[in-house]
């Protein structure tokens, strides 16, 4: 037992084992989902709308509790401790920080105040130093912080950067990122993913990344999972997934050996649904 725990510790910072999530006590959203996040690596979780990607993240971070949902079965082990059902503020204290979908910054507070809030759970640290560290990754934010207006007036990309920077302020071991590319222009998506990759390289933070933009996500990630209807249907290293014919077909656009007419693609998809 001790040995097994040791093994989980070294290999995976987070392992989600066969969880079921129910909303309002009746709606089953996740049906036996399992996934692992390797320490110091980026893991991507891909899937179509409504597959349950965001729900998975909320189950881990505990934010599910705020939406009348609960983990009704299975366990979520973070560094060997089961955190399923723990309240979100305690999960943050353990070192898991979720960057919410739609950025979730406090719009009527300034950029700096938002950053300071990120460090809410920390004690004994130098605020200015930590803010400088964030600006090291996001020089754009440094420029914008000088004027000191409400964060709601920042551009979409800047708000996304602020949300990620605020996560850094908490000095988490694991960041859960919910669609960082949402609503951003392709160039900005590239910039944001570049920064995510650098954060992972330089700070060694493990990242679980939920994305619709499969191409970007698999380029940045080390390992990937694909989910559908509340279950994982495929997993593999990012390279494997990128070269998988089905993934190419469904998520990356294109793929397949010969050019297909629209008619063929449709019937092909119907036949090859995973579930």
């Amino acid at each position: 037992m001790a040995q097994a725990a040791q093994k989980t510790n070294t290999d995976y910072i987070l392992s989600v084992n066969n969880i079921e999530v129910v909303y309002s006590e009746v709606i089953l959203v996740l049906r036996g989902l399992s996934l692992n996040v390797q320490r110091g690596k980026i893991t991507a979780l891909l899937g179509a709308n409504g597959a349950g990607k965001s729900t998975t993240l909320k189950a881990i971070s505990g934010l599910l509790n705020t939406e009348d949902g609960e983990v009704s079965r299975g366990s979520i082990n973070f560094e060997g401790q089961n955190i399923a059902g723990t309240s979100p503020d305690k999960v943050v204290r353990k070192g898991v920080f979720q960057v919410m979908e739609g950025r979730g910054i406090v719009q009527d507070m300034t950029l700096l105040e938002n950053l300071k809030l990120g460090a809410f759970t920390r004690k004994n640290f130098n605020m200015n130093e930590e803010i400088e560290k964030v600006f090291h990754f996001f020089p754009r934010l440094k420029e914008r912080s000088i004027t000191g207006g409400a964060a709601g007036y920042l551009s979409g990309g800047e708000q996304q950067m602020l949300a990620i920077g605020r996560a850094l302020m908490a000095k988490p071991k694991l960041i859960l990122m919910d669609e960082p590319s949402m609503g951003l222009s392709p160039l900005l998506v590239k910039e944001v993913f570049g920064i995510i990759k650098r954060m992972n390289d330089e700070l060694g933070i493990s990242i679980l990344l939920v994305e619709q933009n499969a191409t970007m996500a698999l380029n940045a990630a080390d390992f990937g999972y694909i989910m559908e209807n509340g279950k994982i249907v495929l997993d593999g290293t990012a390279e494997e997934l990128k070269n998988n014919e089905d993934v190419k077909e469904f998520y990356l656009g294109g793929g397949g050996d010969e050019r297909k007419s629209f008619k063929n693609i449709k019937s092909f998809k119907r036949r090859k649904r995973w579930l």
Partner: protein
Amino acid sequence: MNWDLLFQLLINGVIVGLLYGVVAMCFVLIYKSTQVVNFAQGEFLLLGAWVCLYFLVEYELPFWIGFLLTMGFMAVFGIVVQMLILRPLIGEPIISIIMVTIGFSSFMQSLMSWIFGNSAVSYPKIFEVEVVNIGGLNVETAYLMSIAMSVAIMIIFFLFFRYSRFGLAMRATAYNQQIAQSLGISIKHVFMMAWAISAVVSAVAGIIIGMVSAVSTALSFIGIKVFPAVIVGGMDSIVGGVVGGVIIGVLENLAEFVDGQYLHIGNMYQIAPFYILIVILMIKPYGLFGTPDIERV
């Protein structure tokens, strides 16, 4: 025209208005961070005044010790009220919550009449010198203290919400509870803190009013007076609460002046704020400082 009286009443208005402002801030604090319209705010104020008086008269404690004990009592009281009465109501419709606070206000009023009696009681003499001379004007020490305390409370509020860790946490909670929780803020603690701060600060206002005039059941009426102040300023703006408080205080006293000198209707003083409330609501439904949502275009 009686300039001396007008001047006197204006000063009065500012002093009373600042106190309204302080109570309005407490009201807004609870409304903003917990979405509860607290109709029992006036009773909080009265309870603080009674408890402090009790400490001073029954136990003959020195003022500052009695004052600090009252603050401690009120903090605990605020937390208990939040935990026992309002926590079970989280997620219920706003109208149910309003009914509960109205009911609680009646309950507290009766309870306090029962315990402390119905007659007005004055505070024992606290200041050695009752009147100080400032530039030829004789000013009562109690009034000076009233202004100083009100302004001090406002400055503390400002600094607290601008710079302190918990102040920022409370603002984030007011903005969006889920976001606040995702940052590691415990909503339960924020709610308890909002009620504790609100109860303590209302009590300070109650004690000041008690010292300036006297403590009686009528003091809880300030809780109702604060409504025009809060609505004039905008329900969700703490600065608005202060400005609204001063506006209501001054207008109230102006109404008194006009009434006393020219109209002789009587009791204009009591109702003028509510007329103002109606007019302001017609012109600016969200109050003078009610903040619109930021929309990027």
